[in-house]
């Protein structure tokens, strides 16, 4: 509340201005809701169990960590361990091994989904784009062993 003194003329001016601008702003709001009401395509609700077949998740959805693999099952991982260091709750263990040439390559990429919070920091930390966040979300299981995963199918090429 301002306590400044204003002249009657000024007061009436402000009053009339509010009489016009108030209803105008209300009409602006009403036009938005009317647009939404008459446009059923805008509805974002998914009828989940019924539309299981056609359900497509949004790109920004973060499921569990998956390894990017080509058609032969080869991955891009170099076992540098950046993801393991980036992970805030130690859900990733990168077990390196040596190939025939004696070079350090990926042996096993262990992923403990039970403690993962799907924060996506590992994906951001990876310098080679070897891992990404999956689009799957139906993981419920009765045994904790189901959440201990090995992500890579083959050893890394280095």
């Amino acid at each position: 509340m301002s306590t400044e003194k204003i002249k009657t003329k000024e007061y009436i001016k402000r009053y009339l201005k509010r009489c016009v601008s108030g209803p105008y702003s209300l009409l602006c709001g009403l036009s938005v809701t009317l647009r939404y009401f008459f446009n059923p395509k805008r509805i974002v609700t998914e009828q989940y169990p019924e539309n299981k077949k056609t359900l497509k998740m949004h790109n920004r959805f973060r499921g569990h960590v998956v390894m990017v693999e080509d058609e032969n099952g080869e991955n891009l991982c170099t076992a540098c361990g950046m993801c393991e260091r980036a992970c805030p709750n130690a859900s990733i263990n990168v077990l390196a091994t040596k190939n025939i040439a004696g070079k350090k390559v990926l042996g096993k990429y262990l992923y403990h989904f039970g403690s993962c919070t799907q924060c996506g920091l590992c994906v951001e930390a990876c310098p080679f784009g070897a891992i990404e966040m999956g689009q799957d979300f139906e993981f419920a299981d009765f045994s904790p062993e189901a959440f201990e995963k090995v992500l890579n199918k083959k050893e890394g090429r280095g």
Partner: protein
Amino acid sequence: MLPSVTHPIGDFVRENVPNVLGYLPDFIQPYIPSAEIATLINIIICMVAIAVVGIAPVPVLIYMERKVCAHIQCRLGPMRLGPHGVLQLVADIAKLLFKEVYAPKGADKFLFYLAPIFVLTAPFLNLCVIPFDKNLQVADLSVAIPFILAMNGFGILSTLLGGWASNNKYSLISSLRSGAQIISYEISFAMILLLVVMLAGSASLGEITASQSGHFWDWWIFKAPVLGLLAFIMFLVSSTAELNRAPFDIAEAEQELTGGFHTEYNGMAFAMFYLAEYINLFTTSCIATVCFLGGYHAPTIGILAIDNILNFVPGIVWFLGKTFFVVWIYMMFRWTFVRPRVDQLMALEWKFLLPVNLLLLIFGVVFLAFGWILP
């Protein structure tokens, strides 16, 4: 004893009750007041009809409210129980029916249980004077508008009783707020209805409807150019406040007062408040329809072929159609606009609505005096 409005069913009862009573033994014939019994039967029929008309739209309104709200917010609303969730309400009512009703510690038990009973009187009494069709009206009072204004007082009485008797600070604040709000907005509400009474030349809802017969531009919203539309908008604003609906729901104001005056109510007592809220919504929409949208008259457009088809549809269908259109407007208001603060609410009434309504009244006189009303 003839009623103000005659209806074929009432005539049938009046004709046939003396005949049926004539089969009784001769020695008690002189003691049977057959005319009074016929009237009594008619009264009971009217009461049942009003109860049905009052309660039947409520499930439709609640379902409609949920769906309208959902679609405005880009949701689907109830979809699981029955096709498109139509059975959701049955489940909700069954839940409320099985809940125990109890008063909190320290509550004034008598007033606490009286409030939900009082709250239902106003909407039912208002329904009695509304003409749903040409003869479909319980009583054509010559003072229907003042009657409606008086009966609306019951609504605030129950709010005050419920809030006071609950022994809860939220409830008390809420009921006092809503008391102040309704006393303020009743003035605007009355003024707008007064304008309609002045234009129509009668306070009886039957005659107000009759004054709008003809084409759709003979409805009061169009008949008095611009003035009618402004009056209709003012009516919507002040009646939204009367109904305690958002954006003027400071009596409930969930974010500030948990549940408002019905915080402490549960089970059927809560359901009564809920029911009254929606019957009130329906009756107020009915009043808007009667006063501004031509009541049961079909929206004829002046072309004979189309008008014949429109007039073929019974009046009650037009009446309910218009009523639900007004209900839809109220729902759009509720889910679009934001709630004003208490002081803003009072400022809106006393600084904006009241002067505008007084101006509208004066312009109504000017319109009548200069004959600017459409013929």
